[in-house]
């Protein structure tokens, strides 16, 4: 039971942090370098999941992916099953929920890269793409790593959104944090203790590893 929930949680966290790495980089890059006047609007939008109760976010995602929405119907016609109360639905909800945890550190470290280095790169004939890969990304690596690890850890520990969107289906949507809730509801405190301790240790090891790596590589954020 624990193992099944743990594997599902890890799978969810890996997929979510991978997706957030792919979409977080361009979003963060845009937030860091855009000169659009309405940028503050996008910044607020991206940060919304930090302050929003998970139930609010989960509710709207549930409505958006449910069979009553055009997107939900389109997905159902494509795959034969709905998104609500499925693993895929969990992924969508978790990506939205952890978005600021990935984007904010990435955007901060992009913004901290000296503009003159970007100019120097262009003056040496490099395209914008090459400047990104050779100059911006290597120098923003601490922030990119932090964003990815934080979104991974945040997904590991999420509860409200998962409960709203995924329900509590063992093997499909039952994550470790839902399992703990389940065990406590069943008054099985010993089992809940085991599961909770496992999650606590996992998160702690992960963050220790991140901060240790940053220190080792001289990646202390300025």
């Amino acid at each position, binding site marked *: 039971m624990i193992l099944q929930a743990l594997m599902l949680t890890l799978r969810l966290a890996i997929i979510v942090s991978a997706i957030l790495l792919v979409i977080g980089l361009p979003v963060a890059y845009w937030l860091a370098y855009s000169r659009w006047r309405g940028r503050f609007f996008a910044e607020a939008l991206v940060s919304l999941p930090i302050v929003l109760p998970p139930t609010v976010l989960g509710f709207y995602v549930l409505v958006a992916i449910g069979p009553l929405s055009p997107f939900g119907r389109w997905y159902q016609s494509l795959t034969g099953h709905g998104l609500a109360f499925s693993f895929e639905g969990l992924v969508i909800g978790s990506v939205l929920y952890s978005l600021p945890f990935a984007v904010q550190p990435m955007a901060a470290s992009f913004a901290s890269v*000296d503009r*003159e*280095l970007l*100019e*120097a*790169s*262009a*003056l*040496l*004939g*490099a*395209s914008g793409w*090459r400047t990104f890969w*050779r*100059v911006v990304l*290597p*120098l923003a690596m601490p922030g990119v790593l932090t964003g990815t690890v934080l979104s991974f850890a945040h997904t590991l520990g999420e509860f409200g959104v998962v409960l709203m969107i995924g329900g509590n289906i063992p093997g499909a949507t039952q994550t470790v944090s839902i399992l703990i809730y389940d065990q406590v509801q069943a008054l099985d405190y010993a089992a809940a203790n085991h599961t909770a301790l496992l999650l606590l240790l996992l998160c702690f090891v992960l963050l220790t590893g991140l901060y240790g790596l940053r220190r080792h590589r001289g990646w202390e954020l300025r």
Partner: protein
Amino acid sequence: MNGAPPAPQAEETLCVRIRKRLRNGSGPDFTLDTDFSVPAGFTILFGASGAGKTTLLDCIAGLQHPDGGRIAIGETVLFDSISGVNVPPNRRAAGYLLQSLALFPHMTVKQNVDYGLTHLERAEREHRRREILASFRISELAGRRPSEVSGGERQRAALARALVTRPRLLLLDEPLTALDAATKGKIVDDLRAWIRRHRIPILYVTHNRDEVFALGENVLVLEAGRVLAQGFPQDVLSRPRTESIAQLAGFENIFDCEVSAFHIEQGTMTCPIVGFAASLEVPLVRVDPSQKVRVGIRAGDILLGSSSPKGLSARNVLEGTVTSLEQQDVTVIARVNCAPEFVVHLTPGGRHALQVETGSRVWLIIKTYSCHVLQ
């Protein structure tokens, strides 16, 4: 990709005719409005801070957009507001050394130098890198990061990185200000040697007047966004057509002199002013006898006496007549004819104490070290 065209053999001229208005938060807007050309070789872009020097370089390099005008190097148009040409900075083949140098901190000196060469084949790349590292005497530093080398070595690495791409023009924004004179001199020598082999237009920004005379074949004086004068440093700065150039040059008095005698043990030499009877005792510099030198004296460095002074260490005492007195703010500008005429600055209090008027007989007292030999 990296479309830097190979540097042609023929010498090219950089032509810049641009207009750019800069918004200035509180004060009046600033307008850069220039029309000039830069031949191959060193051209000093000289002006006080805020004159628009960096904005001008940014426009030439493509980092800022002029509101209108045209920029061309040789036959290649880089910017033309009428035909809508605006070549992006990565295709302009302009070497631009920013004040901060902007070396990539996560790369070694070698990787920095290689950065602009990725479009070349490996053998050619290695050849060029070896050549430029040797030219700037940093071959041993190739494996080090910018943070692991000295300030002078960083300047050399940044120059090497800019020049290894064989740019068609070179823009230098006060690249050597932070260095001591000896280090600066050696780097300039190496830069000159490179320039002799690759004749490209170089715009060298400075507000240090000594560098103007040390480096310049050609000087461009920029003030408040406009080119006030262009030409040989001596012509522009010694016969200032406007008050502001004289102020920029800092030497209100500039004289052509001959060297008539060296006093090695005293550390001075005697320099008669060409066309006049007066002569100046100036600090000893290494020049050939009978060679002409130019001596600059700041008006504020000259002491004025109302009687012939005695018991002074100053070697230059010249007698003359005050031809005009004019007060600007807290400075009294006196013109004193000693054959030739000198400009002397004094305070209103000094004027009062000396009781000088137009026509007064006065003595000018000038320390040897207030006489600057400009070449």
